[in-house]
């Protein structure tokens, strides 16, 4: 099906984009990679009257470390992360995620920030952003603000980005020493929405105990969910098989998935727990802690 008619604008600067978004308010949607928005428009799930295409804003395409954070610009495509030595060497959680988003052709167009702004319940980047304690930089006519990912993910397909605003970049804290993460996903085939997904991030202290943990699950609620009960169990504890099982159980308890042809509620809840455990085991293995399987 063809999308409903709309007016198309391609601004040449961020200021011009903001002026258009301010002028059209709730009638406008930002078009970046288009890999979620265009299918949604084709199914008439979205009918924006105005599209503001930011693809010409090459100044928003970057991966750079600034003040202890990795900044990913609004036009940075998934494929850029897959092939970045910075990402593969220092941000394994992000490298894992970028390799599992949709399929390799879609990743040559789709953007990280666009995926976060779409906030699909089964989207990949919300899960990783929660576990990685990301922040989103949002600019509007009156200024720039930074919101935590927890506050950014409001509801299915709804974020903290307001009318007239543009999400400029997502920032991930640079992992301190003895930190690793892992992203895990079950999908029926490459490119399908996740049946279940989980992200785990672990920092160990000098004694081998967990100093800081970030755990999140996807396709298990209205949007990606942070598993706080698992984080509380993990923080300060020595990694053991029993601890990992308990963290998985906390995810099983929190998960509130919908049954569909990918699986039953019972199955998806169980897989949330299995993937949290697998993510923890993989992250710890990256830190040289083995024997927890």
């Amino acid at each position, binding site marked *: 099906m063809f999308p409903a008619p709309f007016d198309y604008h391609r601004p040449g600067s961020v200021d011009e984009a903001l002026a258009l978004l301010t002028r059209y308010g709730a009638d406008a949607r930002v078009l970046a990679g288009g890999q979620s928005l265009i299918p949604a428009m084709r199914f008439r799930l979205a009918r924006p009257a105005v599209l503001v295409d930011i693809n010409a804003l090459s100044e928003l395409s970057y991966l750079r470390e600034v003040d202890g954070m990795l900044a990913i610009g609004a036009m940075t495509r998934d494929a850029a992360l897959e092939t970045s030595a910075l990402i593969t060497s220092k941000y394994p959680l992000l490298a894992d995620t970028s390799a599992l988003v949709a399929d390799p052709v879609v990743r*040559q167009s789709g953007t990280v920030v666009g995926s976060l702004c779409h906030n699909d319940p089964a989207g990949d980047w919300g899960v990783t952003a929660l576990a990685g304690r990301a922040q989103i930089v949002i600019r509007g006519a009156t200024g720039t603000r930074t919101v935590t990912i927890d506050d950014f993910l409001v509801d299915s397909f709804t974020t903290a980005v307001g009318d007239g605003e543009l999400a400029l970049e997502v920032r991930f804290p640079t992992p301190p020493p003895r930190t690793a993460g892992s992203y895990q996903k079950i999908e029926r085939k490459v490119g399908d929405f996740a049946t279940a997904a989980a992200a785990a991030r672990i920092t160990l202290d000098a004694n081998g105990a967990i100093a800081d943990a970030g755990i999140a699950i996807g396709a298990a609620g209205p949007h990606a969910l942070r598993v706080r009960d698992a984080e509380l169990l993990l923080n300060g504890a020595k990694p053991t098989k029993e601890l990992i099982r308990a963290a998985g159980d906390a995810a099983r308890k929190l998960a509130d998935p919908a049954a569909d042809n990918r699986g039953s509620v019972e199955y998806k809840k169980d897989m949330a727990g299995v993937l949290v455990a697998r993510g923890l085991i993989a992250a710890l293995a990256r830190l040289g802690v083995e024997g927890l399987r």
Partner: protein
Amino acid sequence: MKISVTVNGTLYEREVEPRTLLVYFLREALGLTGTHVGCDTSSCGVCVVVLDGDRAVKSCTMFAAMADGHDITTVEGLVQGGKLHPLQQAFWDCHGLQCGYCTPGMLMTSYALLKHQPNPDEPAIREALAGNLCRCTGYQNIVKAVQQAAAETNAPAPEPVAT
């Protein structure tokens, strides 16, 4: 709105509705029907074309308006001087197609892959083609064809034969 798009080296200026999808622009406005429509929902990859020389895109999930000022290569652009592109020749030699419906997308995805990785190993080829569906071949001969094309493209020019 008016757009200017270079397709296979030729500049086309056309009036389009903003909601016109690139694949329908190519097929219906330009008559370039080598690019196929399959699932029409960005799942199958038969509509892949190459944007600006090295980026594979599913043309059912891009507006023609987004291609304004850009360069598109379709399967019709692979033949040079009446000679099949090494990828096309390799698909022929290796029986990399049966019904042929997925072939334009397979060729263009592989074309972009070889621009980024001139010498991909078998897992890299399988990974790159994971967003392109084929219901006939079982993929084996497609992978072989891309391997052959990569080997040929990378082979040094033959030494002149001494007489």
